[in-house]
C-alpha cells in the first residue's frame, strides 16, 4: 500500500521564509535540469550526426555544404548494407530472447536458492562481464576452429548470448536482492506454486528491469564488433560491415545515413514497447497503476 506523502502547503505562506520555499522547490528544479543535461549529452551527438547525414559533403565536419538525401539513396541501394543490417537484426532478436530467459533463470537461482558451488557459479557469471570482448572473440575463434565448427551467424549468436546474458543476470539480481520477501512468503502460504509466484508477484516487480535488460541485450548484440568479427563466417553483421568500409573515407556519410535509419527504427521500437507495456497494464487501472504495480511489489 503506498503511504500517503505529506502534501506541500498550497500557495505562498507568509510565515515560511523564502529560502525554505526555494529549498522545497529545488529538488524538482534540480531534477529537471539534471535529466535535461544528461539527455542532451547522450542524445546530442546522435542528433548532430543525424543532421549531418543530410549534409552534402563526404566529410562529417562543419561547415554545412547543403541539404541532400543522396546518402539515403545510396544506402537504400546498397545490398551489402541491407544484408548486414538484416543479419544483425536476426542475431540480436534471438540473442535478446535467449538472454532474458537464461538471465532471469540464473538471477533467480543465484539470489534465491542455495546450492553447492554457488559462489563459483556467481563468480563465473561475473567474470564474463570483466573479460574484454576482443579476448573472448579470439578465444572463441580458436575454440571453434579446434572443434572444426564452421563459423557462421550461429557461432556469432552463441557467443553473443554468452556475453550478454550475464548482463541480464546482473541487472535483475540488483533488483531482486532487495525485494521484500513478505509478499512472496504470503503467496506461498496461500498455496502458490513457484511458477505462479514468479508470474504474479515477481515478474510485475521486475518488469522495468526486464525491459531495460532486454533492450540492453539487443543493443549489445546489435552493436557488437569484436566477437562478430572473429566468430563470423561469410555473413556479415552491421558493425563488421561498418568497420570494413570505413577505411575509404567517402563511405563515412553512407554509414552515417544507415546508422541514423537504424537509430530511428530503434526509437520507434522502444516507443512501441512502452505503449505495449502501458496497454498491458491498462486493465489494471491506467498510468498511475503502472508505477504502482512497479513500486507496489516492494511493500
Amino acid at each position: 500500500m503506498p503511504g500517503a506523502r505529506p502534501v506541500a502547503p498550497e500557495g505562498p505562506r507568509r510565515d515560511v521564509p523564502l529560502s525554505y520555499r526555494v529549498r522545497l522547490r529545488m529538488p524538482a528544479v534540480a531534477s529537471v535540469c539534471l535529466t535535461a543535461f544528461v539527455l542532451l549529452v547522450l542524445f546530442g551527438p546522435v542528433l548532430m550526426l543525424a543532421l549531418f547525414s543530410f549534409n552534402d559533403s563526404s566529410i562529417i565536419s562543419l561547415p554545412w555544404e547543403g541539404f541532400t538525401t543522396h546518402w539515403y539513396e545510396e544506402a537504400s541501394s546498397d545490398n551489402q548494407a541491407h544484408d548486414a543490417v538484416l543479419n544483425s537484426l536476426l542475431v540480436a532478436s534471438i540473442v535478446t530472447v535467449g538472454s532474458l530467459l537464461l538471465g532471469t533463470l540464473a538471477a533467480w537461482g543465484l539470489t534465491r536458492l542455495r546450492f553447492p558451488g554457488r559462489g563459483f557459479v556467481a563468480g563465473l557469471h561475473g567474470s564474463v562481464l570483466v573479460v574484454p570482448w576482443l579476448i573472448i572473440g579470439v578465444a572463441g575463434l580458436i575454440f571453434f576452429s579446434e572443434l572444426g565448427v564452421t563459423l557462421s551467424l550461429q557461432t556469432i549468436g552463441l557467443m553473443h548470448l554468452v556475453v550478454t546474458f550475464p548482463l541480464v543476470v546482473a541487472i535483475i539480481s540488483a533488483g531482486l536482492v532487495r525485494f521484500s520477501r513478505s509478499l512472496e512468503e504470503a503467496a506461498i502460504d496461500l498455496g502458490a506454486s513457484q511458477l505462479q509466484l514468479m508470474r504474479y508477484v515477481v515478474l510485475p516487480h521486475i518488469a522495468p528491469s526486464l525491459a531495460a535488460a532486454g533492450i540492453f541485450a539487443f543493443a549489445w548484440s546489435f552493436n557488437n564488433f569484436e566477437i562478430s568479427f572473429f566468430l563470423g563466417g561469410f555473413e556479415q553483421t552491421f558493425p563488421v560491415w561498418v568497420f570494413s568500409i570505413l577505411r575509404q573515407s567517402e563511405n563515412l556519410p553512407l554509414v552515417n545515413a544507415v546508422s541514423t535509419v537504424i537509430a530511428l527504427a530503434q526509437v520507434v521500437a522502444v516507443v512501441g514497447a512502452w505503449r505495449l507495456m502501458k496497454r498491458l497494464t491498462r486493465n489494471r487501472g491506467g498510468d498511475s497503476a503502472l508505477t504502482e504495480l512497479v513500486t507496489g511489489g516492494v511493500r
Partner: protein
Amino acid sequence: MTWKRTALVASLASAALTFGACGFGGSDGDTSVAPAPKDPNAAASGTLRIFAYGDTVPDEMLDPFREANPDVDLKIATFDSNKSAAAKLAGGFESDVVEVCTDEMEPLLVRGLLRPLDPEGVKDFDKLAFHDSPDIRNEGGQVLFAPASAGPHGLIVNTDEVTESVDSYQALFDPRYADNVALEATPLTAIAVTALAQGLDDPMNLTPEQVDETEQYLLDNRDQFRAFAESDSSMVNLFKSGEVVLADGGRGTTQAMIDDGVPVEWVAPKEGALSWVCGLAITSKAQNIPAAYKLINYYASPEAQAISAKLGFVAMNPDALPLVPAKYQQTADPKNLAEAIPETQPDDSEAYDRAWQEVLAE
C-alpha cells in the same frame, strides 16, 4: 570442495590441455603451387570464398564477375586491417582466396597459409605493375599473389595554409607547422617516413640502431603532431575541420578531400614515395582452385582495373588506362609507382612496432 566440483575442474583442465596441446590453426594445408586450370576459358562453378578488405569487394567490382561466371557462388568476408585478418586466419578461419599485401605476408607464410600461384595461369601477369618484384614472392621465388591494387604514399599538403612549396618529408618536422601535422598511425609508414626525413636510406630495412634513432627523433619532435590518423576517414576529417595542414598519406585520400572542396594537393617527396601493394592469393586450404584463378584473372584484367581506378586506386594493368575516365587518368597511371618504394615487411618488424608503440605511449 565437493567431489562434483573437483571432477568438473579436472575434466575442464584436461579438455583445455588436450586442445592446447593440439596446437591451433593446424597447418595441414597444401603449400605446393596451385595448379592453373588447363583450359582458361572453361566455366568455373561451385562456391568461392573470399576474405578481403571491404573496399576491394564492393558490388560494382564483383558484379561483372558474377555475370561472367553465373555458376560461381561468391561468399565474401571482409576485414578492416591486415593484422586482424592475420589473427583471424591464424585462429583457424578458412577461405579460398585471401587479399594479402606486401607488408603483412610474413605471418601467413610462416603458418603455411598461402599457396603459390602459377603466373602462367594469370593472363596479363607480365603487364602488371610490380610483377617482377621480389616482394610478391616467397623465398623460393614462387609468386604468391597477382598485384591488384597499389597506392602511392607521400605527402598531403593544404596549399592555402602551407604557402611554401613542399617537396620533402622534412616538412613534417618543420617547427612552423607545429601542432598542425598528422601522421598515419601505422608503424611501418610512420617509421619509414621519419627515417626518410632524416636522410636514411632503405626505410624498409633499418638496422636496430637506425630504428632507435628514428624513434628518438619522433619522440623529440612529438609536439609537431596534433593527431595520428587511424584511417582514411579520420585523415580526411582532420584536414577538413582545420585541425591539420600537413600529413603523410595516399593519393586516394587526397582526392577525397579535393572532391569535397578542401584545398589540398598530393606531393611525391624527393626522398621517394612509398607504395602499398595488395592482391589476391590462394590459401593452402582452398577448395575451389579453378574459380580462384578465374577471380584472380578477373582482377588483373583491364576491365576490372578500370573499375578499380574509378575507386581511386592505381591501375596495375596499363591496358586499363584507355578505359579510365579522364578525371582519374592521372591518379590511375602506373607510372606513378615507378619510383615508389614498395612497403614490405621488415625483417625486424617487431622493432618497428615496438618503436611506434613507445612513441604513442609517451
